[in-house]
């Protein structure tokens, strides 16, 4: 059970860091807006 907590925290940490990078790149975290930008850009 401790393993599950640790793995969950680590996954959450990596995922949040990646979301921050996505936000810096596209200016939004809404998926349809990002898809719009990808289609145009």
């Amino acid at each position, binding site marked *: 059970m401790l393993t599950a907590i640790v793995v969950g925290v*680590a*996954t959450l940490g990596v995922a949040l860091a*990646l979301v921050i990078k996505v936000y810096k790149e596209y200016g939004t975290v809404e998926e349809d807006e990002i898809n719009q930008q990808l289609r145009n850009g």
Partner: protein
Amino acid sequence: MTSHLPAIVIIVPLFAALAAAASGWINRKAPFQIALASLFVSFVSSVLLLLRVLGTGVAVEYQMAGWPAPMGIVYVIDHLSALVLVVITFVAFVNLLGNQQAVESEYKNKEGAFNSLYLLFTAGLIGMTATGDAFNLYVLLEIASLSGYALIGLGSSRAPLATLNYLFIGTIGATFYLLGVGYLYIATGSLNMADLATIIPTMMDSSTILFAFIICLTGLLVKMAMFPVHGWLPGAYSESTTVSAGLIAPLTTKVTVYIMIRICLTVFTPEYTFKHIQPANIMVGLAVISIIFGSLSALAQKDYKRMLSYIIIAEVGYMVGGFFLGNRLGISGAILHIINDAAMTLALFMAAGIFIWKTGDESRSSLKGLYAKMPFTMAGFTLAALSVVGVPPTCGFFSKWYLISGGIAAGQYLFVGALIFSSLVNAVLFFRIFEIALFEPFKSHAHGGDNMHEHGGDDIHAHGGENIHGHGSGEIHAHGTVLIKEAPLAMLIPFLGVCVLLVILGLYSGSIVTNIIHFAIPAGII
């Protein structure tokens, strides 16, 4: 010392990861050297383990911290594990060795982070292969996956999005596997693989065990990118840097195939997997769809690395289909293909690294005229491409031979047809590249200094009938009109070594199968 080899193989990269991260603040060059040294130690240990297993003929068992099974975690190295361990450590070591300049230029201020992630990923894979405990396997699977996500996320500007996609899908896959292990624990009370193998035959009709099998297998299929849960692979592998791709692409899916073989053969015994459930038609059918889908999608790609990603999806179809044929030929073909595909993918991604280093561009059209410009690189690339198509004496031919023989013996003619179809499609894919690289004239690059990573002298590219004498030393004057400006030796020699290895693996396929793989498959399978 040698009695602790199973522990050394995994502990050295694990502690070296810590050392690499710490030393990154003190010294710029130290993390890379620490990583290289520890991977070399792991490689030597895995070779010694393989020799020991071959010599004694029995598996090497190592109890972590002396706690006996089934309470403690036991590392079991048998023929199959030892073989895959050698593959993992070899790929990790050679990939890092061959990409030193790329690492230095791409990860300018992040050497500590990159090298420690690299080592953590390798340690996770090594542990997955060596462990004899089903839950320990999940822990190491997550270690490898998270390091993989971080490595891929450090890539191009599109990388974080592709990595998030991979993270969501991959975490669900790993959770399915965990759920399966949980059901096994509820039903049997044990997590040790050998122990489970003795308990499961007594409860063959239990629906809990059946559900555990199905959900474990589904989780593993997600992690190895079988159709239809392959969606994460093309984005993740094409957006990462070539160094990371050269580590992750040859290994992740193949080690997951190894885990599937381990779970189906060692934990759920062959009688359960093949006779009680009879998954052959469903799984081979899924494999056929995967092969055809992967091959056709690869035809549509313009980007070289995306094309390779779809080829990987097709190759996973070979291995899964070959395994679920259920006969000795098919399973030997699947295991041989683990080794061969790891080597071929490593060679192809190292070639991508060299192309991108020289031309700075990832699309296929940037490969124009490269046979004249970089003959040695293209010679190695030709060998790797012929291996994927399946031309003797390269290794790709021999694993396809075993898979096709197994398919005919099992009566799965659709699988045989898909294999042949995929070989033809691979021929089209690679001969297109041969044509562009051989017959199109080399295009001059008007880019500024940032795309050319050449240190020391510019390139002057000749078009048509001029002969221009280049500046600087180290340029060989070609007979024709284009100067040979090869990749740096530090990148070229490991790459050519891997390509020659493809031929050596092919020539020694027979002895690999009779001496190692034959003993990896349980005796009951004909």
